[in-house]
């Protein structure tokens, strides 16, 4: 635990301090992230921007506890997760993070309801409560009428709504959206962004990773990454 003051930590859901991530490819060291520091407070809506190869994806993986920094510290919801083992990182993903992916990533053989229930299942919430909450969430994203459908029977926009409901299932501290509109047409993109805006207004902390400026404009704050460094950080 860092000795930083308690009040400060509580307000900050995400805090990165001098995060570096190196890869060794064919004997050569590539600096994907080269000393990144920033913090995000509870209830904020951030967009992370940057061209491909900027280190944006690496940053997202570290923020999402899918990867660990080579050096530096990362506090997620008050806990330093930078050097945790795989099991404990998994637990943090389960409780503190809600992922929304570009290609939705719903489990194809599970129904809409089962997909939404999945994070709650891994958390050990009883079946009855899971179903009740999953139905509530489906209603929130306006997917109540498709509960027993399989993902392949849904349109892209509908799939992304289900994915949002699933991301909200364990009421995570941070919603992490990776190009959520990348596979959607402009009309559905706007609808999804409206949904995000709604969630933000309800007090959710959202981190949106995108390379599209009009999508990034939906967010209140912005970080621009380039060559593994933060180019711009605007609240």
């Amino acid at each position, binding site marked *: 635990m860092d000795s930083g003051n308690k009040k400060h930590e509580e307000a900050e859901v995400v805090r990165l301090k001098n995060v570096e991530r190196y890869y060794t490819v064919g004997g050569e060291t590539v600096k994907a992230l080269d000393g990144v520091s920033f913090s995000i407070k509870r209830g904020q809506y951030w967009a992370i921007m940057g061209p491909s190869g900027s280190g944006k994806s690496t940053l997202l993986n570290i923020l999402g506890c899918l990867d660990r920094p080579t050096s530096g510290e990362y506090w997620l919801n008050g806990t330093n997760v930078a050097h945790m083992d795989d099991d404990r990182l998994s637990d943090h*993903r389960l409780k503190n993070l809600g992922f929304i*992916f570009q290609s939705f*990533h719903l489990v194809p053989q599970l129904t809409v309801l089962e997909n939404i229930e999945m994070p709650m299942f891994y958390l050990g919430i009883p079946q009855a409560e899971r179903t009740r909450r999953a139905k509530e969430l489906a209603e929130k994203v306006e997917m109540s009428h498709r509960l027993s459908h399989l993902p392949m029977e849904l349109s892209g926009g509908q799939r992304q709504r289900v994915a949002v409901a699933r991301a909200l299932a364990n009421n995570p501290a941070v919603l992490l959206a990776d190009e959520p509109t990348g596979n959607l047409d402009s009309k559905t993109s706007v609808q999804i962004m409206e949904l995000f805006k709604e969630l933000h207004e309800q007090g959710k902390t959202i981190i949106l990773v995108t390379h599209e400026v009009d999508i990034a404009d939906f967010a209140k704050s912005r970080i621009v990454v380039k060559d593994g460094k933060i180019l711009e950080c605007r609240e």
Partner: protein
Amino acid sequence: MEKFLNAENDNRMKKMSFFSFYYPFIKLGVTDVWRHKTRSFLTMLGMVFGVGSVIAMLAVGEGASHQALESIRRLGSQNIILSSVKPTSDNEASGVSKSAQLAMYGLLNDDNLRIRETIAGVEDVVPARMVRRNARFNERRIELRVVETVPTWFDVVPRPVLAGRVLTQKDLDANANVCVLTEFGVRKLLAARRMIGQCVRLGQEVFEVVGVVKNESGGNVRAPDSEADAYIPMSTGAKVFGVANIRYVSGGMEGERVELSQIIVKMNSISVVEAGAKAIEAMLKRFHKKPDFKIDVPLSLLREAEKTKRTYNIVLGAIAGISLLVGGIGIMNIMLASVTERTREIGIRRAIGARKSRIVIQFLINTCVLSITGGLVGLIVGVVIPIIITVATKMPTVIQPWSMGLAFGISVATGIVFGLYPALRAASLDPIEALRHE
């Protein structure tokens, strides 16, 4: 909402019951098997044949050995059976003038006495002389084996008395013309009539039927009793049939003189049977220059049969092991393919927060669903095949209840053993890479 999700989450994970934890995985496994019906069926065939053959072969083997062991047990495990055999050398020597010669060989009354007097641990010695005679009752006729013996025969070769009585010492002392028939002979000869008290003709003599016994030898060639026997007192036999047995063959007569056809020695405990048999053999060899007798020890036969059964079980186990190995490899192969096919799903589950162990459990259960389903189908096959065999060939089969438990255990074990590698491989996938997989 916020409160229960953060404070109680850790407790919930531990509180979950066994069933509610595994049920979704079982459901997922069953759906997965059902979705790939053909593939699952072909994968399961290995298990089906493996488990099915174990149960079926155990049932057939147990049926056969049960029959063999039972018939050996009926010979009496405390008994030593000595029988006269015609020495082969004697046969050749008498080849030239066989019409004139009387072949003399076999066990003697003296042997009977010698065994009784000199061998330790002997409880009883029963001599018997067997001749084949035609039995007649009115117009009915049947060839019987006439056993001239003493009353203790019925103690040494016990069998249930169906009607009347067995031979007594009084019959022996009086040279009485009485006989005890076996059930089969009675049915052939007397048909539906009241059996006891009837007079039947054995050879040229008339005998009164005083008893009927059940015959239980079950077709074993070494059994002292046979299907169609007539038991008469030894003294009567000597009086009416003599000791020479003369048969008329084409071109002349063939005669042989055998004093005793069989001597049954009953030892007073099972532990001395084999030593007793050795002592008797050594003693008799001193008096018999020609090999004109043989010794059967039912206990040794029993031991041998049990040894054979054990060997059979080892071979069976090896066959079962190989087929299950092949079946298990088939399942592992399919599961590895399944892991590749479901890479993205694994990535999604890991990204959402499933620990590696959860992925391992999911794939292990999936494999077990396959292997257990295969095992259950194999169990049905293994139960049905022996029934078909019994119905079709009248061969007895005994389905061992424990073999079914074994089959289930083997199915689960195969699932775990061969599912472990694919499951570990699934869990070790890097979530980032797995999510990118197309």
